C-alpha cells in the first residue's frame, strides 16, 4: 500500500508542476504581446535614400559622448571601404553598400536601435539596462560586471566592450544622447548634425505615419517596408530604403517577436526548478533511504 501511495504522490506532483508551468507560460505570452513600447516614446526614422556618407553624425557622436579621438579624421571617407561595426570608441558608424543594378551606393548608419523590448535588458542579470519612457535604452555602467551576455543577446550586434580598459572594462553603446539631450526633449547630436535630414526625430508613432506617407508619395523610390516598425517587437530607430533591406546589411530574418518571447517561457520555469525541485528530490531521497536507515538502526541495536 505504501508503494502505491508514493507512486500517486509522484504522479500528482509531476502533473501539478506541469500544469503550473503551462499556466504561467500563457500568462506571460499575453503580457509580451500587449506591451509594444511606451506610447510617447521618441524615435528616429533613418532614410537611406538621403544619406551621402559624409560621416557628420559620427563626428557629432564622438564630440557629444566625449569619445576618444578617432584614428582617422571624420572627413576621411576611405574608412567606408570596409564594413565597420560599432565599438567602444564609436557608438555609431556609417557603412557603404554597392547595390547591384544601381549606379549609386547606399549608405547606412548603424547605432543602437533602442528596441521596445530590448534583448540586452532581459539578458542582463544585474539589471544594468533601462528602457526609458522617452524611448532610450540606457545602462548603468557602474553595476556592469562585464559578462557580455547583452552583446550576444542583441540581434543587431550593437553593444561593444571596452577591451582597452585594463581595470574596469564595461559594455558601451549608443544611449540616444539620453543624459544630455533626449531627457530634455532635444534630438540626439547625430540628428542635429545631419546635413540632409537623413535622420528624422519625433514620436515613434508619428514616424511610422511619416514613413508610410513617404512610401505612398514615392512608391518607385522606396521599398514598401519600414524596417524596425515590427522587427523584434519594434524598435525606436527605424529605416526606409530604396534597395531591398538585405542588400544594405539588414538582417531580414529576425521576425516580429521580441527576442524576450523566445526565452521567456523557459525562464519562467527556471525559478520553479530552482525552488521546488531541490525540496522535492530531497524528499524523494529521504523517503527512499528511510528503510535503509531504519534497517541500519535496527542492526546496530542488535
Amino acid at each position, binding site marked *: 500500500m505504501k508503494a502505491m501511495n508514493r507512486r500517486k504522490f509522484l504522479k500528482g506532483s509531476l502533473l501539478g508542476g506541469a500544469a503550473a508551468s503551462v499556466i504561467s507560460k500563457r500568462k506571460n505570452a499575453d503580457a509580451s504581446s500587449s506591451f509594444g513600447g511606451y506610447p510617447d516614446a521618441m524615435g528616429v526614422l533613418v532614410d537611406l535614400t538621403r544619406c551621402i556618407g559624409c560621416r557628420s553624425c559620427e563626428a557629432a557622436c564622438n564630440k557629444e559622448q566625449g569619445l576618444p579621438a578617432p*584614428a582617422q579624421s571624420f572627413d576621411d571617407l576611405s574608412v567606408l571601404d570596409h564594413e565597420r561595426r560599432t565599438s567602444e570608441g564609436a557608438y555609431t558608424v556609417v557603412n557603404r553598400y554597392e547595390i547591384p543594378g544601381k549606379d549609386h551606393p547606399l549608405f547606412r548608419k548603424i547605432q543602437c536601435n533602442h528596441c521596445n523590448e530590448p534583448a540586452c535588458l532581459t539578458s542582463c542579470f544585474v539589471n544594468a539596462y533601462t528602457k526609458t519612457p522617452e524611448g532610450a535604452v540606457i545602462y548603468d555602467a557602474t553595476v556592469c560586471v562585464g559578462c557580455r551576455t547583452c552583446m550576444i543577446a542583441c540581434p543587431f550586434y550593437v553593444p561593444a566592450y571596452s577591451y582597452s580598459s585594463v581595470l574596469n572594462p564595461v559594455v558601451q553603446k549608443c544611449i540616444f544622447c539620453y543624459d544630455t539631450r533626449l531627457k*530634455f*526633449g532635444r*534630438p540626439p547630436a547625430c540628428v542635429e548634425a545631419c546635413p540632409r*535630414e537623413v535622420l528624422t*526625430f519625433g514620436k515613434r508613432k508619428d514616424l511610422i505615419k511619416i514613413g508610410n506617407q513617404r512610401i505612398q508619395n514615392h512608391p518607385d523610390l522606396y521599398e514598401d517596408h519600414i524596417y524596425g516598425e515590427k522587427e523584434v517587437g519594434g524598435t525606436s530607430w527605424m529605416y526606409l530604403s530604396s534597395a531591398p533591406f538585405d542588400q544594405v546589411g539588414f538582417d531580414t530574418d529576425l521576425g516580429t517577436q521580441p527576442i524576450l518571447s523566445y526565452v521567456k517561457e523557459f525562464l519562467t520555469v527556471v525559478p520553479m526548478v530552482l525552488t521546488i525541485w531541490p525540496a522535492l528530490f530531497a524528499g524523494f531521497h529521504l523517503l527512499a533511504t528511510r528503510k535503509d536507515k531504519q534497517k541500519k538502526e535496527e542492526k546496530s541495536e542488535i
Partner: protein
Amino acid sequence: MEQIQKYLYGAVLVSLLCFSPLQNFAVAGDGPDEVEIDSLAQLYEPVYFDHAMHEEVTDSNCAVCHHHTLGTQIEDENCMRCHAESGATDEIACQECHSSNRFEAEDLARIDADKTLYHRDKVGLKAAYHIRCMNCHEEMGAANGCQDCHSRTDAGNKFFHAGNYAPPESDKPAGGGH
C-alpha cells in the same frame, strides 16, 4: 522695449518696400544677385550663393527651388493637387518656411498642436538647402563635396578631427575592429 518695437516696425516697413513688387508679379531677374547663407554657419564659413547665375542655369524657372511660392507653374503632380492655382505667397526666402530649429521640442510641439497641418514632414532649413542644392548638383555634374561650397572653420576642423586637429598618420589602423 520701445526701441525693439521701433526696430521691428522699421524692419517690417523696409521689407515691405523692398519686396512688395515681388509679391504679385515676380519674374526671374527680380531676385537678389547674391545671397549670403550664414544662418547655420558654425562648422563652416557662410556660403555666398550666386543667385543670378542659378537663375540662368534653371532657365529662370523659379519653381525649381521656390516651389509654387513665386506663382510659377509647378510640375509635380502631387503638389498640383492643391497648388495649381495658389499663386505667389508672401514668404519667398527658404527660411520663411523651412524651420531652422527643426526637431527642437518647440518645433515638434508646434507641428503636434496643428492637427490639420498637411506638411508635417517638411524638412528643416539645413536639409532644404542640402537636399535641393546637392541633388541638382549631382544631376548637373557640378561640384558636390562639402568643402566645394563652404570652407570649414577652425571649429569645424576640431569637430571633424581634421586640418590642424587631424590624428597623426602613423595611428591609422589596418582595418576596423570591434
